[in-house]
């Protein structure tokens, strides 16, 4: 069962990055480069998604002394998480489209007339 995640623009950007290549293994630096978010700011998002069960993570299986670098932590969308992420992105796109449509249909916020509140 998936937990709820507070949806922010940054969270959607991270989900979109993971959804672009769902079968690939993504690590923090790669996600931040692909999503355009700052390195430090993606970790709270990844932690929230992981605790809610949308993504899983595991250590890279390498020999550090042979590779000459530290092992990475790879993140991947779970099956349920991927479905939920898609529906959240579609929902956000639908909302944005409806907002744009309502703006183009002629609705405008009431503009104050000069002198209002003075008489």
């Amino acid at each position, binding site marked *: *069962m998936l*937990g709820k995640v507070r949806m922010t623009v940054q969270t959607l950007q991270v989900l979109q990055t993971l959804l672009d290549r769902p079968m690939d293994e993504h*690590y*923090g*630096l790669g996600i931040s480069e692909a999503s355009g978010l*700052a*390195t*430090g*700011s993606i*970790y*709270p998002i990844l*932690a*929230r998604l992981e*605790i809610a069960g949308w993504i899983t993570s595991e*250590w890279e*299986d*390498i*020999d*550090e*002394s*042979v*590779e*000459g*670098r*530290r*092992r*990475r*932590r790879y993140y991947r969308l779970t099956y349920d998480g991927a479905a939920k992420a898609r529906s959240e992105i579609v929902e956000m796109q639908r909302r944005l489209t409806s907002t744009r449509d309502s703006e183009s249909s002629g609705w405008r916020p009431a503009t104050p007339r000069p002198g209002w509140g003075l008489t």
Partner: protein
Amino acid sequence: MTFASKSAWRVEAMETGLVDSSIRVALRFLPADYRNRYRDEWYAELDEMERGEVSRCRPALRILLNAPAMGWALRADGRHQAAGLPSVFSTGEQRAWLVFAHAATILIDPSTSCILGSRLPRHVKVGDLLVLRNEVGLLGAGVIDQVSERDEFRRSGCRKCFSANLVHLREFPPLYRCMHCGELSRYRMLIVTKSKHYATSHGRTWVAMRGLLSNKELAALCVNPKAQSRIQELRPGAFETEMASRYPESLRYPILARATNVT
């Protein structure tokens, strides 16, 4: 040493100090169980940045700025458990096992999985309570989600003597010291042994209780307190009752409250 090279060395030392301090402070915001994991993860990325000749100061400071939010997010798991949100329990009879965490398990992540060894005690099954300890005392407890059989035993160790007893000496550049042979190395070696062994996963219900009970106190809760084996059975409900009497706040966690309600 010329003035220019001396200045460059000083700037690098200052940068290293700043990065180290930022990460050290950031880790203090996280729950204790997550610190090792994120320390390794963050330093791996800063290490890659260094090789890409990108300054590490800015990312390290961003990590520090976002650490409180991250700590809050990671503690949400405990808050959900306390609120009685879903957790995994078998409906059958639950038994409790006290397991000495292998050094390799410590390097993997004791909060998610535990290596039981090459022989699986016949009665260990999914839904049982797993209580982990180390040479000092209690580490934590979780309900077993899965018991898997593996063909390879993978662990990190010293590249000279293969000992798993490595100590993290310095953060950046990373430096490990082998407490067995004294070898200093920047990277740990992956040691793969072909042997069949069993491992559990228990991450979904893991509750960290590091140091709350000593090994002597834990031994007193076992069916056979004088047994020397790595996996010992705990008396039904004994661990939960002991924790509830010493730390009443532990009843917030369903895995501990369940047995105390029954008894």
